[in-house]
């Protein structure tokens, strides 16, 4: 008996794999086999759990992550790593190939516990990852990554994918400096086929990979997983339109969890997802037309009597065939073959469908509509309005997040309060955002002014032109989009807003470096691409009080477009204007914060705070320098720059943006004004010409060379005080 089982074990190069079938065997012999096998198959990275290695967990509820309690009273989750005997044997997808369906279900449960445990220790994206656990397992079981390409749209749901593709041991470093990225990254692993972070790119990229495969004569599969939220973006339709036309073989998996916005909820509770597409997708699930027909049929039967009952039954059958057989006209019209809806938490279903589609010789583009639940398997996430989309470190047993205590609030909250104050005073003020009600703070605005806040779904381009349309009618639209996502809407900003000089106000949150989200989300380029537009007023607050004033300034600028940028993070603790109502600033006027000599630091935005800190560093070395806050990049405060250039030896411009931004505009002006023909030295401090990887904000700033120490060192280096420069840097 033991010999037979030994012969059945296929041996792989790296580690000994065990295939255990579920055939019944006598308990004593199977026990000895098990202990023998458990000693043999130890993965190089993780020791097998102390529990009886391969005994299947008894599951209390189907589909709920289960961690065996150490004691009866410790509850379902505990902060020690939950035992994951089966997951411990999986390092790469190839190790899954011999598992049975029952074992795959167990693997999914263990994977779920592991995701919860990991995210509880590091923070990150939880809800989305929990929703796709079964899907991830099914995909890696059926397909052969990395030859088969599996693309994850946005990538924030790819934590289970990372765990199954050789990065489980590094999950404790996710979103930290030098650790795993929070999204997919090609340079991190060959299993990450395409870098993602912004949404709705997976079908486009997948189609490109499919066509490339066809041109090269290869035979691998291409699978793109995209959510119903990402489906609200135009690029997804551009891609499907093209895919249907080219007719190349590829699989699109629509992960439908009825979540579009972040959160898909107001401050008071869950909300239906925005957009007509969402109701179309739920009609596919609830089969409403069929029900109505049934009601009609029932009614007709009752009214007319017995013999009609047969007729009504026939009508029912006919209707069912017509409605359910046609699948979905929306995707079919675009040329994708529609399969679904499918229960996304049922591994059996997922595997049989994927196997079937994989084995069908020629499919063209296929769309599988999978229905999942965000946060599934972790009750606190299921119940939360935001489904625990993005969480800080938390206690798995209670679901409570460890939120640090900060003395001030975030710039986001201050912006929302400022906008509410403006909207109270002026009924024409309206707000627009693209599915980011939580992240932009506009959920606060929505609660106060339910009819004046517009969530357009993930559609930044439409948001900008929509705002332009509103401005045409005399309203005062505040288009609140993250700096990084504004990149998507650039043509609309130029062509639809700036060219026509429409007074749309752009509030760009997450400007500069953003920390754990990394380069995909950092707002490095907005000063550059906004300030080069002829009609745009470009400004940036140096603290939260300035932010209130700039919101008021933007509200007052009614003859041309304007924009302002503010970073991720909390305020500095300065006193706020009374009633949260700012005063409009004089456009094109900066201010001097510190008077000094020899060197002037001209900062833009919150970099001014770093300048002030640098000034105190230089003062401790005996040099009192001037610090000025430019406030406006366009129009520049010419008088301020002239006076600084004429009364100092050195002028250093500081900003948290790329080349071509504030510093370049200052240099341009100085050159044209003849200020560079004299003795003043101008030096720019900008973000370096490379992408700064994810990490803590402090690490990123150090990597970028924009910390107060760096600024002070630059000051000393320019005036020849290299010894002081070294002293400041150490």
């Amino acid at each position, binding site marked *: 008996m033991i010999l037979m089982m030994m012969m059945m074990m296929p041996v792989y190069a790296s580690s000994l794999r065990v295939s255990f079938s579920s055939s019944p065997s006598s308990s004593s012999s199977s026990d000895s086999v098990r202990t023998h096998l458990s000693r043999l198959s130890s993965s190089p990275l993780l020791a097998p759990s102390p529990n009886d290695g391969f005994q299947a967990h008894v599951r209390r509820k189907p589909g709920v992550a289960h961690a065996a309690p150490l004691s009866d009273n410790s509850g379902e989750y505990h902060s020690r790593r939950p035992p994951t005997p089966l997951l411990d044997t999986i390092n790469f997808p190839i190790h899954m190939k011999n598992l049975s369906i029952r074992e795959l279900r167990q693997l999914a449960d263990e994977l779920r516990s592991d995701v919860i445990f990991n995210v509880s220790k590091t923070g990150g994206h939880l809800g989305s990852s929990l929703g796709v656990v079964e899907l991830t397992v099914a995909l890696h079981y059926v397909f052969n990554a990395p030859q088969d390409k599996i693309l994850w749209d946005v990538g924030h749901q790819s934590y289970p994918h990372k765990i199954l593709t050789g990065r489980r041991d590094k999950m404790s470093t996710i979103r930290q400096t030098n650790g795993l990225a929070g999204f997919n990254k090609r340079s991190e692993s060959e299993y990450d086929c395409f870098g993602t972070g912004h949404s709705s790119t997976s079908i486009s990229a997948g189609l490109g990979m499919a066509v490339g495969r066809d041109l090269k004569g290869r035979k691998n599969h291409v699978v793109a997983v995209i959510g119903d939220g990402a489906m609200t973006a135009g690029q997804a339709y551009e891609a499907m339109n093209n895919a249907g036309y080219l007719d190349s073989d590829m699989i699109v998996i629509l992960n439908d969890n009825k979540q579009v916005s972040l959160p898909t909820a107001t401050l008071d509770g*869950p909300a239906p997802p925005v957009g007509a597409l969402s109701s179309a997708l739920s009609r596919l699930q609830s089969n409403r037309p069929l029900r109505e027909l049934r*009601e009609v049929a029932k009614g007709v039967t009752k009214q007319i009597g017995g013999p009609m009952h047969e007729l009504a039954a026939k009508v029912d059958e006919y209707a069912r065939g017509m409605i359910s057989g046609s699948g979905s006209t929306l995707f079919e019209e675009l040329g994708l073959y529609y399969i679904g809806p499918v229960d996304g938490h049922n591994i059996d279903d997922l595997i049989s469908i994927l196997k079937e589609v994989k084995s069908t010789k020629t499919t063209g583009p296929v769309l599988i509509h999978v229905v999942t639940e965000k946060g599934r398997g972790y009750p606190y996430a299921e119940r939360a309005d935001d489904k625990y989309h993005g969480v800080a470190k938390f206690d798995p047993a209670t679901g409570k997040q460890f939120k640090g205590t900060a003395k001030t609030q975030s710039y986001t909250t201050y912006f929302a309060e400022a906008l509410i104050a403006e909207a109270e005073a002026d009924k024409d003020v309206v707000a627009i955002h693209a599915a980011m009600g939580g992240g932009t703070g506009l959920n606060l605005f929505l609660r106060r002014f339910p009819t004046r806040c517009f969530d357009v779904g993930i559609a930044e381009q439409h948001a900008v032109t929509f705002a332009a349309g509103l401005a045409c009618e005399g309203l005062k639209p505040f288009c609140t989009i993250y700096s990084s996502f504004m990149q998507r809407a650039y043509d609309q900003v130029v062509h639809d807003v700036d060219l026509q000089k429409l007074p749309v106000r752009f509030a760009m949150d997450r400007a500069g470096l953003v920390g754990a989200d990394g380069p995909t989300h950092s707002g490095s380029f907005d000063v550059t691409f906004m300030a080069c537009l002829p009609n745009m007023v470009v400004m940036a607050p140096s603290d939260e009080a300035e932010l209130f004033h700039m919101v008021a300034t933007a509200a007052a600028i009614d003859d041309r477009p304007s924009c302002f940028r503010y970073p991720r993070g909390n305020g500095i603790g300065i006193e706020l204007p009374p009633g949260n109502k700012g005063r409009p600033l004089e456009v094109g006027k900066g201010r001097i914060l510190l008077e000094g000599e020899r060197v002037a630091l001209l900062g833009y935005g919150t970099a001014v705070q770093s300048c002030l800190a640098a000034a105190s560093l230089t003062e401790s070395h005996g040099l009192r320098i001037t610090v000025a806050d430019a406030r406006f990049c366009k129009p520049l405060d010419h008088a301020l720059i002239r006076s600084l250039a004429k009364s100092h030896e050195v002028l250093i411009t500081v900003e948290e943006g790329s080349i071509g931004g504030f510093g370049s505009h200052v240099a341009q002006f100085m050159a044209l004004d003849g200020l560079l023909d004299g003795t003043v030295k101008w030096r720019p401090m900008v973000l370096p010409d490379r992408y700064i990887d994810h990490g803590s904000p402090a690490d990123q700033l150090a990597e970028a060379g924009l910390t107060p120490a760096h600024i002070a060192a630059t000051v000393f280096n320019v005036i020849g005080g290299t010894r002081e420069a070294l002293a400041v840097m150490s």
Partner: protein
Amino acid sequence: MCSALTPPPSAVTHRLRLFAPTSNPIPIHTRIDFRPRASSLNDTVPSPSSSFYDLLGISESGTLLEIKQAYKQMARKYHPDVSPPDRVDEYTQRFIRVQEAYETLSDPRRRELYDRHISSGLPLAFSSRRSNRFDEELEARSEWKSNWQSQLNDLRRRSSQKDSRGNVSWGARMRRQRDEQVAAD
């Protein structure tokens, strides 16, 4: 027999044209009610076969705000403390049912399950107790399963057509090219 069903243009109103034994087709709106109605609208307790939507007096595509408003209205009316003394039991029963209706319809997930329940045409009274919901979920999911199984069969049938000479899409041409190369090797 059945004239063409017009697809619903929006989620709000639907019109279905159904054949009738008489010559003129009857345009019928979404909510058809052939149940015997009491003469006074709100006095009798509705039969268990009426839906939650009927109970609250709103249409099946009612928004959350409408549901809330209807519930508040009904709750104020049928609360045992304010009901006329001779009809306390009746009103209390109704109040409980209204409560249940609101709980189910105000949660998007439960509302979706409930919608599926009605569409499946089960005569059982809907209950928000977990075991019953689980059974319904199973039933709804099995409906989906037969659906996608037939779709997969259809996919297989179509795949043979996709390879035929008649298909001139870019993908088909590349596939033919690849197959010819493989055959040549």
